[in-house]
């Protein structure tokens, strides 16, 4: 338990987790749509503000889990309610809490029927998401990890597009099937670790090599599907396309990060030997994802599908950064997780705004709107540039660090990733060009109105972060630095111990 810095005083993390859940209870009773909107906005905003108070108290110089809380839960099985935050998770928590109010804003008029139910789903979603990032007990983690599927299933299945049934079931089945072996792995680890589910206790143990490989495969299936890594990605386009705007934003910004977070939190520390062995395959799979995602995005006519496939590529960069196993790569990957959350989230919001006006996500029906929606196209232009890692925007920093890490690891590998960057420019600009100028025979779009102030307020913070991270990423990197260094130190220490043991 020395990895925990127990929280003194007000249980901030638990409040963050349970406040949305408590807030959702009221909506079961009061079913007025207007009240539901304002109430949810209020709750998510309060959570966002509360989460910001983590920052000043967060100690950047330690790799331990801070604000930790520890309570017994199911004693017969030694399951505890233990939560904490370290440098890897804090940014993701903030991303989650900060993005939720804007998801609510984005659904203000988009969602017209069953508003309270929608808001309940959003709030439960928030509870589960924050919980996943702070859980330090594996059962707690798994429960929240799976529980998240239910509200997401409803978000897609009820408020989704025409093929929502197909998409929602595919999403649910695919991700659940992937994580089911994770459960077996968890139980195996429990029995191997003296009947404890405490995650830090499971790390850096010398499990037999075969066991590590099997564990890694179980982890990999669960997390790779969530990321999603090529070739486990086919649920993503379907889900993204059919989900309502807020659902897409949550999916892209937060849910996908859980896979990569899982790699960092579990795969690396628990199965270091297997990670080293299987690393090349994962790396080349990432490369394949980067290129495949880019190419496929290029061929899309549907804007959401395009962005969905671009996510496959971007997340390929993240996994690439994680598995090159050096400081640049991993820090870049974590930063890129945040960046992708901001940028892709914003892009989905933008597409949602078009959709609300034209009721189509086809590129062909949104051509040439630049003339009538100047503010909108400026914003989507900036976000697209960010998505293709234009210098000065956030993604550039992340991708640059990942590539730097990849270069340090293996030059051909890094070279192989470069076409992905070119493809990103190709598909994003193709979309941008069509939206802003279109062709010679644009549909008549003159009835379109530009963004209203609510929509601008929704997008403004994303813009702010695009440039903040792009121009001054230092504060963000400083937060994760200690934890990443610790992770890598432990990792390399473990490797040396293995080699040393092998020599004698």
């Amino acid at each position, binding site marked *: 338990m020395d990895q925990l810095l127990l929280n003194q005083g007000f249980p901030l993390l638990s409040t963050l987790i349970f406040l949305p859940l408590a807030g959702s209870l009221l909506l079961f009773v009061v079913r007025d749509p207007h009240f539901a909107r304002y109430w949810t906005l209020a709750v998510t905003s309060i959570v966002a503000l509360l989460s910001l108070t983590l920052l000043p108290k967060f100690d950047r110089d330690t790799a331990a889990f801070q604000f930790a809380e520890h309570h017994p839960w199911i004693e*017969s099985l030694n399951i505890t309610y233990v939560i904490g935050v370290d440098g890897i998770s804090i940014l993701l928590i903030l991303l989650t809490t900060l993005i939720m109010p804007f998801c609510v804003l984005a659904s203000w008029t988009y969602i017209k029927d069953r508003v309270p*139910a929608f808001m309940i789903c959003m709030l439960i979603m928030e509870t589960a998401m924050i919980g996943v990032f702070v859980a330090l007990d594996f*059962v707690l983690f798994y429960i929240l990890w799976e529980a998240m599927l239910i509200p997401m299933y409803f978000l897609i299945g009820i408020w989704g597009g025409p093929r*929502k049934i197909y998409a929602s079931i595919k999403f649910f089945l695919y991700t659940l099937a992937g994580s089911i072996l994770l459960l077996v792995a968890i139980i195996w680890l429990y029995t191997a670790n003296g009947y404890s589910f405490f995650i830090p206790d499971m790390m850096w143990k010398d499990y037999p090599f075969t066991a590590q490989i099997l564990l890694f495969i179980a982890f990999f299936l669960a997390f790779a599907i969530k990321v999603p890594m090529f070739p486990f990605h086919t649920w993503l386009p379907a889900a993204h396309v059919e989900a309502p705007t807020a659902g897409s934003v949550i999916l892209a910004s937060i849910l996908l990060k859980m896979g990569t977070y899982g790699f960092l939190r579990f795969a690396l520390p628990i199965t270091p030997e297997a990670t080293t062995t299987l690393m090349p395959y994962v790396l080349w799979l990432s490369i394949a994802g980067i290129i495949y995602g880019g190419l496929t995005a290029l061929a899309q006519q549907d804007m959401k599908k395009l962005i969905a496939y671009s996510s496959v590529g971007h997340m390929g960069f993240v996994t690439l950064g994680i598995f090159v196993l050096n400081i640049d790569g991993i820090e870049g990957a974590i930063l890129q997780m945040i960046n992708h959350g901001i940028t892709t989230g914003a892009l989905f919001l933008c597409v949602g705004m078009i959709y609300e006006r034209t009721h189509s996500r086809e590129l062909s029906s949104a051509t040439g709107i630049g003339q009538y929606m100047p503010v909108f196209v400026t914003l989507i232009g900036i976000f697209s540039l960010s998505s293709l890692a234009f210098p000065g925007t956030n993604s550039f920093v992340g991708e640059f660090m990942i590539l730097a890490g990849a270069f340090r690891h293996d030059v051909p590998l890094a070279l192989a990733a470069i076409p992905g960057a070119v493809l990103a420019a190709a598909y994003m600009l193709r979309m941008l060009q069509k939206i802003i100028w279109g062709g010679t025979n644009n549909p008549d779009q003159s009835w379109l109105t530009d963004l209203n102030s609510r929509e601008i307020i929704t997008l403004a913070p994303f813009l702010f972060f695009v440039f903040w991270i792009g121009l001054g990423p230092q504060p963000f990197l400083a937060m994760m630095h200690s934890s990443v260094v610790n992770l890598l130190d432990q990792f390399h220490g473990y490797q040396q111990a293995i080699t040393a043991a092998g020599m004698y």
Partner: protein
Amino acid sequence: MLFLPELTILGAGLLFFLLTLGQPSEATIKNCASAVAAVILFTCVLCVNQTGNLFYGAYRVDLFSQIFKILIAAATLVVFLFGNGLKGIKQDSRPEYYLFLLVSNLGLVMLVSSVELLAIFIALELSSFAVYIMVPMRTTATGIFFQMEAGIKYLLFGVMATGFMLFGMSYIFGLTGTTSLDGIAEQLPILANRPAAVVAMLMILSGFFYKLAIFPFHFWVPDVYEGAANETTAFIAAVPKMAAVALLIRLTSLASHQGEMVLNLLMVCSILSMFYGNLSALVQKDLKRMLGFSGIAHAGFILLGLLTFKLTGYASAVYYIVGYALMNLACFLVICQVAAKGENLGISDLSGLHKRAPILALTLTVALFSLAGIPPFVGFTGKFMLLLGALREDHLLLVTLAAINTAIAIYYYLSVVRMTFCSDSNGLGNVQTGFLANSLSLILVTVIIVMGVAPSWFVALAESAIKTIL
């Protein structure tokens, strides 16, 4: 005092016998039934801490039996409450229906206390025969005409299973010279490697496999579920299974010394049940049939707990069957409410339920997600504990197969949820739900969630109860 619950049930049965003689009004029957069930539950709770032997040691009252009695009584009360209209039962035989239900209940209550082979047999037959009669009592007004056929099938299967059981019992008697479980428990370790003893134990187990619907004694399930009235199915699906688990715990704890063979057999049965149930359920259109097949799969899961031959495994099995009963009751509550005339429900009949009856839709969804094993509901916690217990005994392959089954099962549960929440009502009218049904369903939802999130208390209770019989 030791026998108070049984006496109460007997008295209640007499009351209904008297009612059948007269011409009681609908309301009288309804109110009597609810009141009687509540009284039974009350007496069961009252007697929870009783211990003692009756009938020359053939009948034992201990924490284990008392807890199961409470569970049975509580489940029966729930069935009585939500099925109080008895829409699916012939108008003129409703008092008799209650009578037989109570008799069956009596049999089950006696079953969990029986510690002697003949007593077990009698109690089991008592509970079974009453149900055989209840199945054909369904009214043809529901558009179903094969209730008699279903009843006969149920009966014939039952007879076969009890045949096996009797055969096994006679073997055991022949081998040990006693019918008392205690006596058998003393003798069995000595006989452990005698094939006859193994065969005999397995045959006895088959009687309860039949009750719990474990492969290959499951063939009756879909037909009987479909053919019986909704209320009857609710009862069959929840209550006898609890008693069956109680007895299986008693018997497997006896068989635990008999080595690999029993274990392997239980494993094979478990896997086959899970696959058979889940795969068949995938293609069902009728809600009750689907629940029937899913019940087969869940029975396979329960075997996971039993075949650990460990205290925690048994406790998990008890926890799971209770959770399963709760989820099933919640499902059947919804079915009984939605089926206005007591007819069978296709899955498509649930479309748009979220508009027609929001609370029922919520209940059904929670129950189904729980059945599917999604956290944070009781179904997940139960499955988790079963898998954990099995993996502790190094049954990695079994656990993996079970986990894969969970993924398969999602599909058919989700397809019901989809109908409930994600489709329009297609012109189907609103469902009339009373205050009683609504509050009952909310209570069930709460219990399903609370048991899932905080299982400690219940597991501890189950463990302490099981300790008394080991």
